[in-house]
């Protein structure tokens, strides 16, 4: 237990540790400057918004009041746009009424007075083309590095389908720009709720049933703030292959992809000896699914030998299922000469080069009949390669009462033996 030879090393490491204490704790690096968060509010201005059922006020006046407050409290850097639907055409012609959506305030730095005037002049009028409004709102927000948020406020279901707004939401989500649609329903109607929850879950957004002025204002502010607080760079798009040999090679970072039911998606990551691979995968449940499901992430060597796996399963309502894994070459950790694994992948031919580890994502999701299976479900893959950590040696020091007893008894015996030896030597010396 006690290794006296190493005590000097121990002391040195104590000193080193004390020295390290002076250094500030590691923190995440500051993000570099990037484009401002972008949000578009999409307000239903159809005829039904005249109904006065929120604390005695009409739905549109409640929405207008809340919009005013949100515009007042808008964080400085947030770029906000406002789009309305069903606000100009009062007639009965469906083809005209279903094209009725306008942007009344463009996405950009907000002129507060102008935006408020535009909101104040709105009068509930026409049809409810939600699908089209969502499509146009996505266009207004454009493409870029950051997440885009659409906040949809409506009191009625879309009466212009096709396109079905939920399909539109799924299609927008599949386009690659990271787009989130948060929905707010101004009524407790069953059909409206189902449509809005479908839109929200298809894009990873939220649904709120609004029942009071305060709730609407609070929620709107929260959603706009959320865009401001948590907006980040969009994960980069990647398309996994159906085998290891042709799989894309990934550097550390976050990726998105889509995976259908019973599909396998392959990726490759170069891992040098002495490095550790870390990977995690999340699949979003963006449609109606059967209640029991699972997700499997496996790392295999180039020849198909499984190295490690991560798995998670669940049942019931959830937004994402996720799992992860770590792997490092055990031979490299032993500090022996690294023997590269047989990798048929063309990239890893050099003897001193990195091993290519294949990652394969598979799922056991299933859906009731009638649910669309394409495009696949959104998949988020995080890959990291870090220095691997060697297995620790046994501790150099001891602990516990047994240790004390052993040392004390050993000391006592040593003392007794020394004493007796001394007596015996004196006796022998006296005799001579």
């Amino acid at each position, binding site marked *: 237990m*006690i290794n006296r030879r190493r005590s000097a090393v121990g002391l040195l490491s*104590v000193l080193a*540790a004390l020295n390290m204490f002076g250094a500030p704790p*590691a*923190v995440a690096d500051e*993000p570099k400057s990037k484009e401002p968060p972008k949000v578009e509010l999409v307000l239903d201005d159809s005829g039904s918004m005249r109904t006065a059922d929120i604390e005695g006020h009409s739905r549109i006046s409640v929405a207008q009041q809340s919009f005013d407050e949100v515009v007042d409290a808008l964080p400085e850097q947030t770029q906000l746009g406002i789009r309305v639907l069903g606000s100009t055409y009062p007639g009965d012609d469906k083809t005209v009424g279903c094209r009725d959506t306008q942007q009344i305030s463009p996405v950009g730095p907000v002129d507060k007075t102008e935006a408020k005037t535009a909101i104040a002049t709105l009068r509930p009028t026409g049809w409810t083309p939600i699908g089209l409004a969502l499509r146009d709102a996505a266009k207004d927000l454009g493409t870029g590095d950051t997440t885009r948020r659409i906040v949809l406020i409506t009191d009625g279901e879309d009466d212009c389908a096709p396109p079905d707004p939920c399909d539109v939401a799924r299609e927008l989500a599949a386009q690659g720009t990271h787009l989130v649609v948060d929905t707010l329903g101004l009524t407790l109607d069953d059909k409206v*709720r189902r449509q809005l*929850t479908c839109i929200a879950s298809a894009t990873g*957004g*939220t649904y*709120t*049933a609004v029942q009071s002025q305060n*709730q609407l204002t*609070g929620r709107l502010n*929260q959603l706009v*703030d959320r865009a401001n607080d*948590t*907006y980040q*760079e969009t994960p980069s798009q990647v398309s996994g292959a159906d085998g290891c040999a042709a799989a*894309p*090679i990934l550097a*550390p*970072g*976050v*990726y998105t992809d889509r995976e259908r039911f019973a599909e396998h998606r392959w990726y490759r990551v*170069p891992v*040098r000896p002495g490095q550790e691979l*870390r*990977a*995690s*995968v999340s699949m979003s449940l963006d449609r109606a699914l059967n209640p029991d499901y699972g997700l499997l992430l496996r790392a295999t060597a180039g020849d198909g030998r499984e190295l*490690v796996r991560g798995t*998670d399963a669940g049942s019931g309502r*959830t937004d994402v299922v996720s*799992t*992860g*894994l*770590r*792997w490092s070459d055990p031979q490299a950790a032993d500090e022996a000469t690294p023997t590269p694994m047989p990798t048929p992948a063309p990239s890893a031919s050099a003897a001193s*080069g*990195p091993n*290519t580890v294949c990652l394969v994502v598979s799922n056991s999701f299933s859906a009731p009949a009638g649910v669309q299976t394409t495009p696949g479900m959104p998949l*988020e893959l*995080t890959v990291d*390669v*870090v*220095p*691997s950590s060697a*297995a*620790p*040696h046994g501790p150099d*020091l001891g*602990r516990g009462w047994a240790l*004390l007893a052993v*040392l*004390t008894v050993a*000391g006592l015996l040593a003392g007794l033996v020394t*004493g007796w030896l*001394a*007596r015996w030597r004196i006796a022998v010396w006296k005799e001579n």
Partner: protein
Amino acid sequence: MRAKRVAALSAAGAVLLLTAGPAAADGSPSPSPSGTVSTAGSSFLTATTVRPGQTAKLSGSTGDYLYWSFAAAAGQTDRVEVTLTLPPASSRHGSATWTVEAFDGLRRRQACTAGAQTVTAATGDTTVSLGCALRQVRSWAESWSGDPLPGTYYLRLSATDLPEQDLGLPIQAELRISARNGDAQPDGASLKAPLSPPVNPGSTLAPDDAAASAAPSAAASAPRPVERAKGWFASLSTRWLWTVGGGVLAAVAGVAGYRLTRHPRRWFSAAR
């Protein structure tokens, strides 16, 4: 006689040293930073960072998935407490099941050692209390194991089962994370890089490029913990105190044993 006194003193000193050691290792609750967080993320990537000791309090909707993240260092044992204020009973249609789940930096599910992780609220309940005590964070684990390691931890609060009509109703959620520090196991081991995943978008490499790039870890990452749960004495583990104490006891016992052989009569007559 004087030698005896010295021996007794040094033995007492050793005992003092030893009792002080384990007591220090038991750890105390970490200092609580002030401030309340009033947001929550809606996915792993957008999780709001909360420090242990801080409170997160916000209003949301019943169907929301609320995400928070915190950094945990080796030796830390974290405890999560959540109090939920449910929507008024008049607007609810049945019982709802609420769950708080914990994940590590690799988004692997982490077990709760204690606490009501899942609670089903009856229609009449106004509040729900959830809790989860996580396992103590280890300083090192084999890469094939799922043991908790230093790095980022994620929390997700959600309704896992509720009537469809009850979606979107207002709730209030309050989250509190408390941390206790202790000796990290295994002793003397450490993880070179905490389990804090990168958050920057990745880039695919060309096949020829793959060998050239040494693939350094991504710059931006989820919250990283401090090196160790405790500052000063983490590396000076209690094993030092036990071992030094044992050495002192052994020396005292050795002197005592030696003296016993020199003047046995004095010892035994004194005992009588």
